[in-house]
């Protein structure tokens, strides 16, 4: 009651602290959201495949761009891991033509009906070679919709597709993804090579255990990695995540220090009142308890301010900014808040113990 009374009487002082705490929460949530957004833009298409392992060719450095698997390798993998648990994918960069505009697209080919089927968020999956699935980011940037036709161009020629469905979170290396039948991809990726062309860029496997080791051992020139290792192998992803994590760490530490110092300063400013309370018999624990109540109120108010602000920003920010406000981002903000409050409380606790109640008597 006394702790809350003080907040009510010192509206400006506490209001400013709440505002700053709120802005720190906001900052941390936004940094987290940008990190998640960047990650999704770089590797969302790979991450959304519902599989556990990825098989590349051994000399490819686990790169979708450089990896080439033969039809024999594809068959050998299916024999080992089960054909119902494997799916081949191909990757290439194509140019989407729509009216006068054009846009680079990460074009994936996949085996229909296999584990490599992307998850559809609207419409249906493809059932023929002239149908295509597009990522929402492509629909947003070019204005195409399910039912429209879209032209994809490789180095030589134009291919016309009908859009039958959309996927969400399908981006790769910053490009929106589109998905076609793997035979169609093979034709576009390796024109004029016929049956000599590689069969796929990679084979996806659902299932763990010793599958990885068995496949790698039995299939010549293969490299089997987990999906997350495949994501980390994407050029720049690792560095980018390191940069984001460093920024997050700094934000986290600075946020914690700012909040911690606030309560420390607040306690110092109130030495006089704390001395009175201690002189009339309040224990250190009681004084500390009052402080903790105030810290809790300020932290809650900060979260209540920062999170809606982040949600609002995410709603109004242009859609080409890679920003994804997630529960994880809120958690980072919340944990930083808790750590900061804890730090402040620990510093302040020392301060509380040091305040001598005799100073309430003035000069002795």
């Amino acid at each position, binding site marked *: 009651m006394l702790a809350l009374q003080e907040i009510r009487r010192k509206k400006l002082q506490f209001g400013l602290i709440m505002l700053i705490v709120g802005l720190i929460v906001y900052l941390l949530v936004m940094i987290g959201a940008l990190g998640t957004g960047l990650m999704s833009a770089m590797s969302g298409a790979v991450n959304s495949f519902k599989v556990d392992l990825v098989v590349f060719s051994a000399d490819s450095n686990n790169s979708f761009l450089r990896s080439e698997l033969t039809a024999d390798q594809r068959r050998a993998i299916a024999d080992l891991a089960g054909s119902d648990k494997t799916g081949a994918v191909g990757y290439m960069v194509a140019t989407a033509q729509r009216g006068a505009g054009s846009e680079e697209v990460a074009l994936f080919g996949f085996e229909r009906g296999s584990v490599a089927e992307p998850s559809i968020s609207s419409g249906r999956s493809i059932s023929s070679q002239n149908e295509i699935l597009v990522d929402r980011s492509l629909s947003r940037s070019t204005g195409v919709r399910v039912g429209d036709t879209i032209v994809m161009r490789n180095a030589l020629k134009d291919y016309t597709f009908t859009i039958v469905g959309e996927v969400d979170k399908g981006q790769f290396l910053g490009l929106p993804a589109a998905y076609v039948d793997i035979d169609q991809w093979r034709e576009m990726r390796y024109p004029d090579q016929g049956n000599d062309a590689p069969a796929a860029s990679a084979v996806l496997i659902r299932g763990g255990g010793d599958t990885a080791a068995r496949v790698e051992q039995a299939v010549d020139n293969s490299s089997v990695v987990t999906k997350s290792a495949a994501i980390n192998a994407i050029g720049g992803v690792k560095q980018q995540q390191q940069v984001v994590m460093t920024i997050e760490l700094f934000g986290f530490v600075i946020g914690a220090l700012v909040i911690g110092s606030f309560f420390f300063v607040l306690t110092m400013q109130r030495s006089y009142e704390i001395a009175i309370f*201690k002189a009339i018999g309040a224990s250190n624990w009681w004084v500390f308890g009052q402080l903790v109540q105030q810290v809790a109120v300020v932290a809650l108010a900060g979260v209540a301010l920062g999170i809606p602000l982040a949600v609002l920003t995410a709603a109004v920010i242009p859609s080409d900014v890679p920003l994804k406000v997630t529960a994880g981002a809120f958690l980072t903000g919340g944990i930083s808040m808790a750590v900061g409050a804890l730090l402040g409380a620990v510093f302040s606790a020392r301060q509380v113990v040091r305040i001598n*109640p*005799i100073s309430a008597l*003035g000069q*002795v």
Partner: protein
Amino acid sequence: MREDERELVAQSLAKVYGSGETAVEAVREASFSVRPGEFVAVVGPSGSGKTTLLAILGGLLAPTRGRVFVGDIDVGRLSEAERARFRRDSVGFVFQGFNLVPYLTAEQNLLAVAAISGKLNGEARRRARQLLQELGIGKRWDHLPGKLSGGERQRVAIGRALMNDPLLVLVDEPTSNLDSEQGSSVVRSLAEEVRTRSKIGVMVTHDRRMLGYVDRVLEIADGRLRPGEP
């Protein structure tokens, strides 16, 4: 418990600040006792050690030598946490500068005492209202200290000192921030509360005009205590 067992007894109290050649003896060999219902003034010039004496009696400061008993509590031997509990349960302080909590209303300043002991209930609220009524500031209960006159603030401070129903009421220079009319009226109220509620009252002052309201006077000079003239 017999009346005399609830006395305040000081035996050869001494307080030395510092050590060696720079040591200053603020209180020397002070021995006296005060009964419940008795209001005693300690008078002396500033720097005579009277506030130090008050701090020792109230458990804010440990004596260098000698002992203080309040009832059966050996105040000088308590640990820091025990001294806080002693102040909370057995002592009412009226500080020189009022020392009210500025963001709490008159009533809340009294209730803070109950909050500290975890007894903030209807009973405490009734007691706070009654004390403010008795002290003549019942109508000002919801005013912040900043909106009260000096005399009114001092009355709130007295109410706070009585809120925990202490055995010992210690008063430090109650008139130094008041004009003489307000000062007399406040000290009269204090004396009345001490007598009717049977408290052990000790007031430190340099204002000789207030000595008419007390039962006994102790003079202090250079830390030495001797009986004085009322």
